[in-house]
């Protein structure tokens, strides 16, 4: 096989042995390549899981992969978020055979929680917790359980920080001041049934309650809600499913235009702007997907990957200078030996190959060591629980860092490194091959 592709074991053997002649130099050169590969692998590994983790965390926190919100315009021109009857929506979901796992229905309100004179502004999300399994798995409670919340109709789960701020404990009854969906002042009473870890992103500003009581405070009827979230069985099906469902819904109800994400504008903002810019009345629906929300996150990932590639190229630009200089030095050291090999019948091409094989082996060793070190570092980092009380939790999976790197990316990096190393070694190799045997043998180096 080796002979078929023009590689002779003799050349490979000599090139490999040549590496051992200056062990320190070989180690240093391979270490420089290993360092470059280590850095790029860590960045690629992190960004590889970045989009997946952020997407998963968002889907859990926002309760779905596809979101449908009802928006109603009152006679006074005020817009109200409301789904009064979702039969049409459910029919469309059924007719399109949407592969859903959970369908969540939520109502949200901005409220002021008051306890013994202390107040805290909160978004209170009301949900049917039987349909929120993903979310319940994601939220870490330090006290109480979701079962406690479901058992107490007026129950509420708030974050540790808010609980500390208003000095409330499990079982305490706290006052809530809010507005109904039509904008009238309303008050109620929550019973604290749980405390969650403050993620500083949602935990600090959002509290969770039962939808029946939130609807009561919003003056919505039972069965009404503000937004529907559809968890799909496979997140990879978001775009295809959303496209079909949206096109079907357009034939059944009035829909805001959905930005397809073809231009640079954020699709969510584009959709929200339609409310103000367009003339409309009655009931319309907003339709968005997790991928629409993730578009900007994807842009961050793209920037990170581009930055990683630039780092790789700059780093290897520097390393390549080292490789070229090393091989120039090797050429000087082995001039006489090259003369001998040429004298006993070695063709120029083989002399060139010996140098290039040597460079290739250094690249292979460097890449292998870099990958192994990156793998070990990743394994160590993956064992550490960084907690959920950090803004970085969105980048992690349940507080643990994860790394994902497709095999093609490893081969691509290996290919780039190999080509650059061979390119750097080519000129000294070529010079070696072109040496006249007599000149080389006369060398005193």
């Amino acid at each position, binding site marked *: 096989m080796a002979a078929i592709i023009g590689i002779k074991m003799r050349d490979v053997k*000599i090139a490999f*042995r040549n590496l051992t002649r200056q062990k320190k130099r070989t180690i240093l050169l391979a270490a420089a390549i290993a360092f470059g590969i280590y850095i790029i692998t860590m960045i690629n590994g992190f960004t590889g899981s970045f989009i997946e983790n952020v997407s998963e965390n968002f889907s859990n926190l926002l309760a779905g992969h596809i979101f449908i919100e009802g928006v109603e315009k009152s006679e006074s021109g005020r817009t109200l978020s409301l789904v009064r009857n979702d039969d049409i929506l459910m029919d469309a979901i059924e007719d399109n055979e949407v592969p859903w796992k959970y369908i969540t229905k939520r109502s949200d309100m901005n409220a002021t929680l008051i306890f013994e004179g202390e107040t805290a502004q909160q978004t209170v999300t009301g949900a049917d917790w039987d349909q929120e399994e993903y979310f319940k798995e994601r939220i870490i409670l330090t006290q109480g359980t979701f079962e406690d919340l479901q058992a107490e109709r007026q129950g509420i789960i708030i974050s540790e920080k808010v609980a500390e701020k208003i000095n409330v404990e499990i079982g305490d009854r706290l006052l809530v001041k809010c507005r109904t969906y039509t904008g009238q002042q309303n008050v109620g009473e929550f019973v604290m049934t749980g405390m969650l870890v403050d993620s500083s992103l949602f935990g600090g500003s959002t509290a969770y309650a039962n939808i029946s009581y939130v609807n009561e405070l919003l003056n919505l009827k039972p069965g009404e809600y503000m937004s529907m979230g559809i968890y799909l069985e496979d997140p990879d099906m978001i775009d295809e499913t959303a496209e079909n469902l949206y096109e079907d819904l357009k034939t059944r109800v009035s829909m805001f235009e959905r930005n397809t994400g073809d231009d640079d504008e954020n699709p969510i903002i584009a959709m929200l702007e339609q409310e103000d810019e367009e003339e409309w009345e009655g009931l319309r629906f907003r339709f968005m997907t997790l991928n629409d929300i993730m578009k900007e996150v994807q842009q961050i990932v793209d920037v990170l990957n581009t930055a990683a590639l630039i780092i790789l190229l700059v780093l290897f630009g520097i390393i390549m200078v080292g490789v070229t200089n090393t091989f120039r030095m090797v050429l000087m050291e082995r001039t006489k030996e090259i*003369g001998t090999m*040429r*004298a*006993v*019948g070695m*063709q*120029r091409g083989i002399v060139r190959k010996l140098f290039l094989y040597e460079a290739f082996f250094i690249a292979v060793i460097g890449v292998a060591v870099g990958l192994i070190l990156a793998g070990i570092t990743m394994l160590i980092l993956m064992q550490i629980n960084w907690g959920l009380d950090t803004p970085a939790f969105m980048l992690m999976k349940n507080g643990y860092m994860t790394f994902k790197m497709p095999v093609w990316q490893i081969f691509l990096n290996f290919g780039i490194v190999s080509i650059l190393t061979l390119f750097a070694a080519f000129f000294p190799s070529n010079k070696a091959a072109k040496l006249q045997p*007599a000149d080389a043998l006369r060398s005193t180096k």
Partner: protein
Amino acid sequence: MAIVELKEVKKVYPLGKTEVHAVKGVSFEICKGDFISIAGPSGSGKSTILNMIGCIDVPTEGQVLINGTETGGLSDRDITDLRHEVLGFIFQSFNLIPVLNVYENVEFPLLLGKSRMTKAEKSDWIDMLIDEVGLQEWRNHKPNELSGGQRQRVAIARALVTKPEIVLADEPTANLDSVTSEAIINLMKKINRDLGTTFIFSTHDPTIVDVADHIIRLRDGLISDNYRQDDARACRE
């Protein structure tokens, strides 16, 4: 028939802004199977002539013919093949490949080109050569583990491994003591007799010059003396 023929060969080396006329017009013939000494003091042009016969250097003027073929018109690839198939080299400073052991150093030229020998035949032949030069016990040792005499023996075995018609030895005893030098020359002479290989060696040591059948003395790039011990004037057909 002459295995090597030089016709009015000159060699000029540039040295800064001046030129060094290393060989100033030399003509001679070497017969197949001869044991020839090219003798002369340092700077007389011995190594330059040997390099041109060995096709590792080209004359500035004149012709070098190997087996009747003028080497000046050959491509680098053909010249390299010629070196591999027809010529063997022994160098003053041995020039062994440091990363290879004795066996591998001897084997090395065999790996560079096509050979009619099978793998087993090659192995037997290499072992026979190593045995012939008395290094069987050292076959797995690297050059840095050998004495100067042992290294030169490896170089001799390496020069013979492709069964060349001509072996060129550039001052093969210069780095050796007198006892080892004599042993090396005797070994070369024995191989010359046993295998019929033509040996051309350069030396400035008068004690080993006389071992040769044919002696060419050089002085300042010109032949000062050219004679055969057997008084023959030309190569036999």
